[in-house]
């Protein structure tokens, strides 16, 4: 347990010590929120969708969590050559605990980024419908954070150097985000996009956040929660296995 705790703590210390990184990673979600939110707002309203910022904000919160979670894990590739990872791998502790500590640490950081984006979205005019649902929304943030941190761990365990990074961005992270329904409603989509969205785990995270924050869940909150939970457990197992197989 002390292994898990100390690795979690390390991740948080690093987060709070590098303000530049913290602020830098908020730039993209805020740009999306303001540019898309206000840019598409009028046309969304005219099409009868209502307030677009209200619709978009949960998606952008999910985006901030996704990006932070995956990036915090990609550093494993770097870390195993020049960082602390090797030091932990030769220590007499279980690899699964190392993976768990790092994943929970990364997930905590990602969830915190989500909370910050949520607070900033209030400035853009976003208003959650009910305060009592906020803890549930936070629960979804944590679940999404753990899921994608575990996914990042699994990917990073397979990669030897940073050259695969672009590949991951273009073929995993971006599709996960754009097909998740973060930016558009899932109703009435062309069939192919609809299917893609329904196999994208982020869709359920976005849906859960939207359901708890603005009351518009497409799949239903329970389904969102169950599916996210199952995928998270699965990815933790796969990530744990791949991580335990890392040889340097």
């Amino acid at each position, binding site marked *: 347990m*002390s*292994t898990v705790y*100390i690795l979690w703590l*390390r991740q948080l*210390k*690093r987060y709070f*010590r*590098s303000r530049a990184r913290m602020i830098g990673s908020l730039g993209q979600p805020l740009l999306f929120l303001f540019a898309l939110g206000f840019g598409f707002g009028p046309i969304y309203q005219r099409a009868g969708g209502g307030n677009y910022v209200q619709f978009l904000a949960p998606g952008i919160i999910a985006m901030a969590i996704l990006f932070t979670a995956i990036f915090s894990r990609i550093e494993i*590739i*770097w870390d195993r*050559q*020049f*960082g*602390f*990872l*090797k*030091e*932990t*791998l*030769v*220590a*007499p*502790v279980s690899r699964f605990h190392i993976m768990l500590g790092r994943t929970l640490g990364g997930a905590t950081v990602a969830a915190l980024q989500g909370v910050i984006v949520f607070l900033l979205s209030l400035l853009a005019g976003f208003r959650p419908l009910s305060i009592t649902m906020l803890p549930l929304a936070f629960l979804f943030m944590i679940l999404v954070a753990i899921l994608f941190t575990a996914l990042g761990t699994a990917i990073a365990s397979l990669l*030897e*150097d*940073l*050259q695969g990074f672009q590949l991951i961005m273009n073929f995993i992270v971006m599709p996960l985000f754009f097909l998740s329904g973060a930016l558009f409603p899932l109703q009435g989509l062309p069939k192919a996009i609809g299917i893609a969205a329904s196999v994208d785990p982020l869709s359920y995270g976005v849906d859960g956040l939207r359901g708890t924050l603005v009351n518009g869940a497409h799949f239903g909150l329970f389904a969102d929660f169950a599916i996210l939970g199952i995928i998270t457990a699965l990815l933790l197992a796969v990530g744990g296995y791949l991580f335990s197989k890392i*040889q*340097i």
Partner: protein
Amino acid sequence: MPAIEVKNLTKEFKGLKAVDSISFEVKEGEIFAFLGPNGAGKTTTIKMLTTLLHPTSGEMRLNNYDPMANPDDARRSFGIVFQDPSLDDELTAKENMEFHGVLYGVQKDLRASRIEQLLNFVELWDRKDDLVKHFSGGMKRRLEIARGLLHHPKILFLDEPTLGLDPQTRTHIWSYVKNLNKEEGITVFFTTHYMEEADRAAQKIAIIDRGKIVAEGSAKELKQKTNTNLLEDAFLALTGRGIREEEASGAEHLRNTRRLWRR
């Protein structure tokens, strides 16, 4: 009982034998130099001994533990300074030590006293609360040595510990290591490209080339054997003058990227 015992150790990467059936022994309390040109198999051997890499075949014993069968016992037996830095730059010197202590299950009180003692030993106690990213290469090395000693290992691995350091710092680091070996009886296994370091510090030397051990003995014996006056000349006589073209690996790519970023 030898501190390290290796028998017919082999590691193949995609059919290429990086380490080819090597055998050697390091006595307890000995300073042992493992020399060889680039790509000879030094780091691969260290990685296998320190449980980071699984051998293709062969046997190893570390403080009488099999690193494959009892990795955690083997891990408690050694401390290591890697070729590439393995400190957390965003943490302070003391925090890096604390982390190590927790990972190795060193009790809190003991941890505090040992950290103070070791940081004093490598003359970093007054910088204990500074972030490691502000440290020079030599300071980082010293900190890594202190950290590697925190759990009182029987064996200390040093993989090119003085690479890129100036002569002052190198002399300094070697005086710690020799001191440690003398007073605590700790076994030291190191690699280096600086032959004079091996000549001065090592009681025994093994030279590895293309995955095979080509010679073994004290510096004096190796010089006699090759009829040379300098260990460097003995080394060249044993391994030839051809420059080794090492295939760039993933690690090498990262190292290059890192160099660019540092500028």
